[in-house]
């Protein structure tokens, strides 16, 4: 019975105890921190008693590292599974491997003996669908049949994805990063990081990416990694019972997620610190400016202790990211021990004069970022408010149909976006077969062919440029409608693709200009016939970094991720130039990146540490109650009855009530949370005898003096917070906003000469800030 007992306990509904939080509410950071300190102090003091207690205290100290290890292992495994499955399913749209159906195209032809270059992709084991069904490999009929089946497979995959999301885990849709940012800042969304969400997100992410839609898997991988983090937190009571400590683990899990998505452990940690965790962003700008001189390690030491997370989180995030990267490497999904499909490794130099096109690419990235954010937010708002939102399945199917229909004819959009980026990043080496490398070779040239070409472009290159331009326009338009649909969708890969296409076009243009006009002054010192010149692949990388920076407004983490992708510090200056330019251009139009814009669209209570509040309002202008409002709902320290409290809870929906000495003096004693009050009274009615509706509730140490005929009073001192934060009514709002940000408060009481005047909640602060910035204050929905 005991074994079944534990299983049945697991199945029981967890009884909510005092100190937990309601769904869609913000946690109290200070309370969580003090609870953790208490727990730690108790364990340390008990550890001196016996050897067993000492061992328990050591286990407690090491539990953090164990959790990080488990998170790294599981995230790496899931990322490997996702990569392998995507690889296979993407090729499934075009054909199937007859000898072993689980092989993708490249794997199927792994052992083929075709030696000629033109035939290197063909092998008898892998056949396209038309060839399999009708026996014809070429011809218009085969092309149309392949086209039709491609669209059919794409529709099937996306339909399965959206149905699974809808039936099993509606929280698995979208990118996940805006919600995770909000959760890490203290918001509670129950079920968002649950086990079903993890399972469904992993399975449907593969389906969504394989269907050919213009989305990536990096954002959803961060969500998957955070779900893993949440899963392992529940194994240890140190993390499962303390929401503040849990968020430390989640921020490290987010780092592991980015690390496996890009193969960039350091970039992952910096991404987690910069974008996801609520931390020390003031310093990031300073560090970004000084990055030119300092290597990364010194930068990490410069990062000071964050307001919410101690520095040990940095080290643990790095550990989790490394374990995840190592796990992914040992699964080896791409067959060549690289973590990402588009890892490039060239070392050709770049020239100072090339900074001009790089900065132009930065400007393009910033402009595209602004355009994308505005268009996507407008479309998402329309989805939220009009009839469009009532047909999510139909919307996904239609968008997939249009994408597949337009993507198939163009060979650059037919293949998966990762392969496209890989081809654009890679420079033309020996025997590159793609059209992009169709240069005229001078057979009398003395140097070997695989040197960087300084050659006129052949017709294949011009053809490729046309197709790439069309692909660029297509991708720019379709991504606006794809991001935000009710399937897991990420944004990194499509924006990198847009940037890579633009960069490659610019690179080829510059290269041809350098060849045909090599007598211009700029090119005279730079390009000589037969010498190294322009590398279009580098332009593609710089363009990708610019576009990604323009849309997400990442700074340090973007540059670190890009240089970890390229394997060297040589190109750090062009990448930085483009990233800085795109951020400046994009910030000129609007301060928010795509994730902050989505947070605003949903009305989450996210107090961005980057927003500066410079208006000269005072606390009295923001506090409630306003002039015409009913007076503040308070409890007195020893004269409220249980019935009064229950009426108060029923009639109002405030999250908490201040406790004063008496209604006449209005001197503040403390603050009590609504949830704690409800649970304590329910508990008391069930468990304690003699507590009835007319029992007096008291918050003092000793019971008040009452006549003997009164029923037994109820002591609720233990749920009272005796040190609520107070400001005076003349405190400037600048200071109040700073306090809310740095301490993570949910509410703050306003007093004048010791008497309670009113209350300011986080929602009031956010609404006030929105009002000051001329945005809609009613859009803030949560507290």
């Amino acid at each position, binding site marked *: 019975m005991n074994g*079944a007992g534990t*299983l*049945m306990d697991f*199945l*029981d*509904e967890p009884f909510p105890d005092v100190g937990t939080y309601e769904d869609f509410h913000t946690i109290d950071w200070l309370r969580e921190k003090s609870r953790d300190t208490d727990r730690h102090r108790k364990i340390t003091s008990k550890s001196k008693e016996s050897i067993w207690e000492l061992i328990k205290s050591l286990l407690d100290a090491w539990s953090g590292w164990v959790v990080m290890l488990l998170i790294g*292992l599981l995230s790496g*495994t*899931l990322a490997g*599974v996702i990569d*392998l*499955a995507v690889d296979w399913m993407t090729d499934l749209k075009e054909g199937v491997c007859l000898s*072993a159906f*689980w*092989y993708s195209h490249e794997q199927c032809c*792994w*052992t*083929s*003996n*075709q*030696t*000629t*270059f033109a035939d*290197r992709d063909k092998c008898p084991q892998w056949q396209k669908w038309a060839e399999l069904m009708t026996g014809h490999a070429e011809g218009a009929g085969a092309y149309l049949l392949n086209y039709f089946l491609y669209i059919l497979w794409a529709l099937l995959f996306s339909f*399965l994805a959206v*149905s*699974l999301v809808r*039936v*099993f*885990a*509606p*929280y698995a*849709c979208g990118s996940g990063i805006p*919600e995770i940012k909000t959760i890490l800042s203290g918001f509670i969304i*129950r079920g968002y990081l649950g*086990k*079903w969400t993890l*399972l*469904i997100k992993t*399975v449907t992410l*593969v389906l969504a990416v394989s269907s050919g839609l213009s989305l990536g898997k990096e954002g959803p991988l961060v969500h998957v990694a955070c779900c893993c983090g949440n899963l392992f937190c529940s194994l240890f009571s140190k993390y499962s019972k303390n929401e503040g400590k849990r968020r430390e683990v989640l921020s490290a899990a987010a780092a592991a997620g980015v690390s496996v998505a890009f193969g960039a452990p350091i970039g992952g940690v910096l991404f987690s610190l910069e974008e996801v965790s609520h931390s020390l962003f003031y310093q990031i700008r300073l560090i970004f400016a000084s990055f030119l001189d300092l290597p990364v390690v010194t930068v990490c030491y410069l990062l000071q202790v964050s307001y919410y997370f101690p520095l040990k989180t940095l080290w643990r995030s790095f550990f989790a990211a490394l374990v995840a990267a190592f796990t992914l490497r*040992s*699964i*080896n999904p791409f*067959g*060549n021990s690289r973590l990402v499909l588009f890892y490039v490794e060239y070392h050709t130099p770049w020239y100072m004069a090339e900074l001009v096109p790089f900065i132009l690419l930065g400007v393009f990235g910033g402009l595209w970022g602004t355009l994308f954010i505005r268009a996507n937010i407008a479309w998402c*708002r329309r*989805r*939220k408010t009009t009839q469009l*939102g009532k047909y*999510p399945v139909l919307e996904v199917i239609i968008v997939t149909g249009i994408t597949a229909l337009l993507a198939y004819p163009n060979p650059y959009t037919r293949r998966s976006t990762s392969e496209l980026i890989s081809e654009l990043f890679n420079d033309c*080496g*020996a*025997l590159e077969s793609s059209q992009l490398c169709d240069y005229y070779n001078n057979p009398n040239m003395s140097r*070997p*062919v*695989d040197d960087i070409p300084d050659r006129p472009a052949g017709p294949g290159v011009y053809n490729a440029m046309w197709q790439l331009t069309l692909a660029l326009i297509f991708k720019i338009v379709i991504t606006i409608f794809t991001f*935000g649909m009710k399937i897991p969708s990420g944004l990194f890969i499509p924006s990198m693709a847009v940037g890579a296409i633009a960069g490659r076009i610019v690179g080829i243009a510059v290269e041809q200009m350098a060849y045909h006009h090599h007598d211009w002054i700029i090119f005279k010192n730079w390009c000589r016939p037969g010498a190294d010149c322009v590398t279009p692949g580098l332009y593609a990388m710089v363009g990708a970094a610019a576009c990604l920076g323009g849309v997400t407004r990442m700074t340090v983490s973007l540059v670190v991720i890009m240089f970890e992708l390229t394997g060297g510090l040589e190109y750090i200056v062009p990448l930085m130039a483009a990233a800085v330019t795109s951020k400046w251009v994009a910030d000129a139009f609007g301060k928010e990146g795509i994730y902050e814009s989505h947070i605003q669209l*949903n009305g989450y209570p996210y107090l961005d540490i980057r927003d500066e509040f410079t208006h000269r309002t005072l606390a009295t202008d923001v506090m409630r109650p306003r002039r015409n409002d009913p007076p503040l709902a308070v409890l007195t320290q020893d004269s409220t009855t249980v019935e009064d409290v229950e009426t108060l809870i029923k009639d109002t929906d405030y999250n908490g009530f201040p406790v004063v000495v008496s209604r006449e003096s209005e001197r503040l004693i403390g603050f009590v949370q609504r949830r704690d009050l409800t649970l304590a009274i329910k508990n008391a009615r069930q468990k304690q005898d003699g507590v009835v509706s007319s029992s007096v509730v008291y918050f003092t140490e000793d019971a008040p003096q009452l006549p003997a005929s009164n029923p037994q009073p109820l002591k609720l001192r233990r749920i009272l917070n005796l040190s609520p934060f107070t400001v005076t009514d003349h405190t400037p709002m600048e200071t109040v906003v700073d306090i809310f940000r740095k301490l993570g408060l949910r509410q703050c009481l306003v007093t004048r000469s010791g008497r309670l005047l009113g209350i300011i909640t986080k929602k009031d602060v956010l609404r006030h800030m929105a009002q000051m910035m001329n945005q809609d204050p009613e859009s803030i*929905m949560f507290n």
Partner: protein
Amino acid sequence: MKFLFGVEAFCLACFVLLSQVSAKNSEDIRCKCICPPYREVEGQIYKQNVSLKDCNCLHVVEPMPVDGKDVEAYCLRCECKYEERSSGTIKVTIIIYLSILGLLLLYMVYLTLLEPMLKRRLFGHSQLIHSDDDVVGDQQPFANAHNVLSRSHSRPNMLNKVEHAQQRWRRQVQEQRKSVFDRHVVLS
């Protein structure tokens, strides 16, 4: 129950990880040499299943297209790369993924199509009319969650507990679906 299933899947994945380290199929390694055009010889690609120490032009390029004195010049231009993959990992991963997908699809079909039909047949039409949700909610899966919850006995045996947990899960998913799809409050 779902948690145990997940742990089991994770253990399988870890097993895959460990097994691929040990099993090295001879077909899973190869050396790929890319040789650009040289004089009259066209560009070619050569592949052979050799190990790392034999991965160079002399061992892999067979038959050699040029004669004795040109072999060195030809081989200098060739680029040889050693590649490794794990066919066992790929096979197991794809099969595990497809089975999980298949199970989910079956469960989805059961929940959306079969269960309402079975319940209707077992308990009659009157039950559905008395359900708490409105008519629109009836079309969604888990619309009968409230009914089943109230109807179940208080005897704490295993089957009831599992059913309770399942109904609770369905209620949660129903709530999530309302906030995401209907009211567009979260994740719009």
